[in-house]
């Protein structure tokens, strides 16, 4: 059996400036896809090196090729276009939610893009297979690939007045995304990926967004009037349909409270308690959750919901500048051990370090030191619990 308390990441790594320049040039058509990928290869190698040096056991490619964790699919799936908020503002059912968000981010509507379904969708090229192959070729570590979850994709890209011409209800679109993602997970498994993580951050927004009036573009596209219970059940159903019966690869779901700015106040707040009954219905192996930030509440929420699933325990906050000490990480793990056995626990940061290409939440240096702190804690814990 492999070592206890494997150290892993949630996905993204801060991108170098020259990569951001290349990303912009690609978008403007000034460099070709091939030229961009060659530049991104270099960035991925750097991200790999950082993670290996920090002692991470299951590494990612830092999502260096993506503009963010979900809108990159617009390049891969036909029928989805990256549209600026300015282009679809008139169709948004809850314009005031967009306004609040633009104001918070201090950006104009024309500078923010979101993937919108503007036709029938079908996969043009695999979503993340090339990322996985390159990563696999350049490391001996186990590898993890994150994909946007089916609920996130549906919720962010279906807009009434634009998308309903092709998919009358968002449920119809969800079926299509589910098929595409399922196919992709199988491709990734066959390419030797050890861990596939589905990102579903909007689930927290469904629970806490409307009441705190904090929303993201991923949620504002739809009216906030949906009943949270119905939405969560729908999210669970569509996720289960996506992963049903797939074996031979570890499947995780990552749920956090936002990672689009360094400001803690700008993110959602509230514990996982109301989500747990739904979470435990998800047919995945691991829940990748935040527990380093105070906004996530206590891990004692598991008291009422014991589970045999694995926990990807968030032990460092990617948004803060101070480096968590191994002692702090160890004491957080010990709290988790009240509800989980040692072999159920993986250690990771709360979220990625560069979820959105243009606004990473930390520098490579601090991100590296945080990962290093996790692996130090892991080696102490391994001695104690093996």
């Amino acid at each position, binding site marked *: 059996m492999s070592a206890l308390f494997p150290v892993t990441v949630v996905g993204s790594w801060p991108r170098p400036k020259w990569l951001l320049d290349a990303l912009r040039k690609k978008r403007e058509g000034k460099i070709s896809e091939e030229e961009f990928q060659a530049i991104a290869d270099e960035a991925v190698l750097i991200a790999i090196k950082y993670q290996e040096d920090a002692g991470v056991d299951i590494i990612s490619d830092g999502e260096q090729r993506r503009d963010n964790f979900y809108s990159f699919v617009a390049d891969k799936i036909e029928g989805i276009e990256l549209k600026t908020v*300015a282009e679809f503002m008139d169709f948004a059912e809850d314009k005031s939610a967009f306004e609040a968000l633009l104001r918070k981010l201090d*950006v104009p*509507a*024309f*500078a923010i893009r979101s993937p919108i379904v503007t036709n029938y969708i079908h996969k043009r090229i695999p979503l993340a297979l090339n990322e996985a192959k390159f990563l696999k070729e350049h490391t001996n570590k186990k590898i993890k690939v994150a994909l946007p979850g089916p609920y996130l994709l549906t919720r962010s890209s279906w807009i009434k007045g634009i998308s309903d011409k092709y998919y009358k209800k968002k449920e119809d679109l969800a079926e299509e995304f589910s098929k595409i993602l399922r196919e992709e997970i199988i491709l990734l498994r066959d390419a030797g990926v050890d861990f596939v993580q589905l990102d579903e951050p909007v689930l927290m927004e469904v629970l806490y967004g409307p009441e705190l009036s904090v929303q993201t573009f991923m949620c504002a596209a739809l009216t906030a009037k949906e009943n949270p219970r119905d939405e969560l059940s729908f999210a669970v159903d569509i996720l289960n349909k996506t992963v049903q019966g797939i074996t031979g690869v570890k499947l995780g779901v990552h749920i956090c409270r936002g990672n689009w700015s360094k400001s803690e106040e700008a993110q959602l707040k509230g514990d996982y308690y109301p989500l747990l009954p739904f979470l435990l219905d998800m047919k995945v192996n691991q829940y990748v959750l935040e527990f380093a930030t105070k906004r996530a509440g206590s891990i004692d929420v598991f008291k009422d919901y014991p589970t045999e699933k694995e926990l990807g325990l968030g032990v460092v906050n990617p948004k803060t500048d101070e480096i968590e000490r191994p002692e702090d990480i160890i004491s957080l793990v010990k709290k988790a051990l009240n509800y989980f056995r040692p072999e159920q626990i993986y250690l990771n940061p709360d979220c990625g370090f560069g979820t959105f290409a243009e606004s990473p939440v930390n520098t490579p240096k601090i991100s590296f030191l945080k990962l290093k702190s996790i692996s130090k804690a892991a080696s102490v814990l391994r001695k104690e619990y093996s």
Partner: protein
Amino acid sequence: MATVVNGIKLEDFNALHEELKRNAEFVSKIHKWNARIRWAGSGFNFTSYVRNHKFTISEPSDIGGADSGPSAHELILTALGACYSTGFIYNATKRNIQIKNFEVAIEGEIDDILVFFGLSDKGHPGYKKIVVKAYVEADADEKTIKEIWEAAVKGSPVGNTLQRGVEIVPQVSLVRK
């Protein structure tokens, strides 16, 4: 073919400019602007008529309105933002600068809203401060864009109205049919 900048034919633009320099009658005509607002007959709902245009003004539901349109104090912010925008496009076109995107976000802060409700007489119920944030995308250097923006701000009819203390003449008459 005529040169078009920012969707405006330069030929027409220049002709209008010349006309304004010479035609005093035309200029005095565009000094006066009118509007008429009617109460819709129930609650805080009003219809405004401006030349051939018609629109609804209301109050948000948390102030007891039907929220069938923006409110009066939101329209003031809009008017200021639109005026700066108009001035920006005007001054950019004058300098032959093509604008790709232009957007303003406006935020106004009332001094003491309770005065409006008759619950306070400490401050005043008007705006004390309005922040207007412009975002521009254009193939021009920062200096030129700044120049255009400054000309727009300086020459803004609505901006000047708000900053100078206008004389308002309120009149009321009871009409019996």
